[in-house]
């Protein structure tokens, strides 16, 4: 594994290997000294062309705890804001001897494109509406820790599917691990062509959240991405909440052992009620700590061994 661009590139064994390493990395978080020397002498650049709090800081801490030298480049304040092309920005940074490049970009496919320009290992930290593989890995890892195995478990993914890269990566990751996935959204937020994809990938679609919730072993709420919406995908926020929000009423009907996930940032009161976000069964903060462990594991697997070394 030279890059991590898509969950699809990973075999089930590779996902399990990342989870096993993440479990070790999780232990490191509870230590007084949180540093491991595994990536000493390696340089990782986080290039974020889109705003992000948790993913960027998570990758930054992950790199630092593994003793890599980490620098952050954001579009605002970099030469990209002066009109420099993505290719020139990336090549300039990589000319400084970078080993790993963590990239977030609003264009789908940007990470793949960058991986073809540079020698450094590229990690896709979210490309447009396409993929967000480390988010999918951390979600699956969090649920696996809660539910034991994911095989045969029913996971409901609810919300703005059209604009969600998290959903696309999650469907791949969860089905790879044997989970039964149902995606739920209003017809206007179902991506076009999802029927064909759902048939080939083996997941289900539904417009009826109340029919799916009683069957679910885990619920994954997605953020309504207002910044990516250009038109009226639903009549009003209120109407969206009534149809597809995890409201206090729906929370009361959910089994108490069903974990509630949300990749963040949350629109409280829109797709998830404050009661659900703060409920005992909410794993939102657990996802954040799992995210750190997963990103440490991914950086370790990509950068610790010889340059063409894979997961072993």
């Amino acid at each position, binding site marked *: 594994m030279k890059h991590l661009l898509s969950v699809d590139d990973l075999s089930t064994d590779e996902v399990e290997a990342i989870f096993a*390493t993440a479990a*070790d990395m999780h232990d490191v978080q509870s*230590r007084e000294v949180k540093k*491991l*020397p595994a990536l000493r002498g390696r340089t990782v650049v986080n290039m974020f062309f889109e705003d992000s709090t948790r993913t960027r800081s998570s990758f930054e801490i992950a790199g630092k705890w593994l003793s890599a030298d980490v620098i952050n480049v954001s579009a605002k304040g970099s030469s990209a804001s002066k009109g420099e092309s993505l290719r020139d920005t990336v090549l300039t940074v990589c000319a400084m001897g970078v080993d790993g490049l963590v990239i977030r970009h609003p264009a789908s496919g940007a990470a793949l494109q960058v991986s073809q320009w540079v020698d450094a290992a590229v990690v896709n930290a979210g490309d447009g509406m396409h993929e967000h593989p480390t988010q999918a890995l951390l979600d699956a890892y969090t649920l696996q820790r809660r539910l034991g195995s994911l095989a045969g478990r029913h996971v409901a993914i609810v919300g703005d599917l059209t604009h969600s890269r998290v959903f696309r990566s999650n469907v791949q990751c969860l089905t790879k691990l044997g989970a039964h996935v149902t995606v739920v959204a209003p017809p206007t937020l179902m991506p076009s062509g999802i029927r064909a994809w759902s048939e080939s990938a083996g997941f289900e679609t539904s417009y009826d959240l109340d029919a799916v919730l009683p069957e679910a072993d885990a619920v994954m709420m997605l953020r309504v991405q207002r910044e990516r919406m250009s038109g009226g995908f639903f009549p009003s926020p209120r109407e969206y909440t009534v149809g597809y929000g995890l409201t206090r009423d729906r929370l009361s009907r959910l089994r108490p052992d069903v974990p509630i996930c949300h990749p963040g940032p949350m629109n409280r009161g829109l797709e998830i009620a404050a009661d659900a976000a703060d409920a005992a069964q909410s794993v939102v903060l657990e996802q954040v700590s799992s995210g750190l462990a997963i990103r440490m594991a991914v950086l370790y697997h990509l950068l*610790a*061994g010889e340059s063409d070394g894979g*997961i072993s």
Partner: protein
Amino acid sequence: MPAPDAPPGHESARTDRTVLDARDISRALTRISHELLERNKGASDLVLLGLHTRGVPLARRIAEKIAAVEGAPVEVGELDVTMYRDDLRSQPTRRAHKTALPAGGIDRKVVVLVDDVLFSGRTIRAALDALADLGRPSAVRLAVLVDRGHRELPIRADHVGKNLPSALAERVSVRLSEVDGTDEVTIS
């Protein structure tokens, strides 16, 4: 250049020679257990940390033997040193194992690192680095089943099951029933 103790003709036809059988291993571990107790004047504050992979069952076996003598359990843990190796960059990515310390931790304890073979000393160097990140033991000792020589670092074991002078080209294999289904040490 073949070492004087290398088996004749080992370059053309490698043959396994058993150096320790199951009873020898058990005897060696019993002796190490007694040495540890004598040196430590009992089992108080003693923590055995097995190094992955075969150090872990060895540590457990020593702990059992000590418990049988002392009548009280001794704390055992597992230590993985993968992240601390100095050859991480020159090999394909190694899969990390679990590090598990006893509930009481290792601060102010006498930690005994347990491994199967002491060779270059680099694994033990990595283990000492890992220990420094985990806490501050009052003392660290090293117990190994086999010391085959060829040290690359100034590291010496406190307790050795068997000194086995070997040629660099020779291969010393430790097999333990917990991992390999049989107990033996061979040289080939």
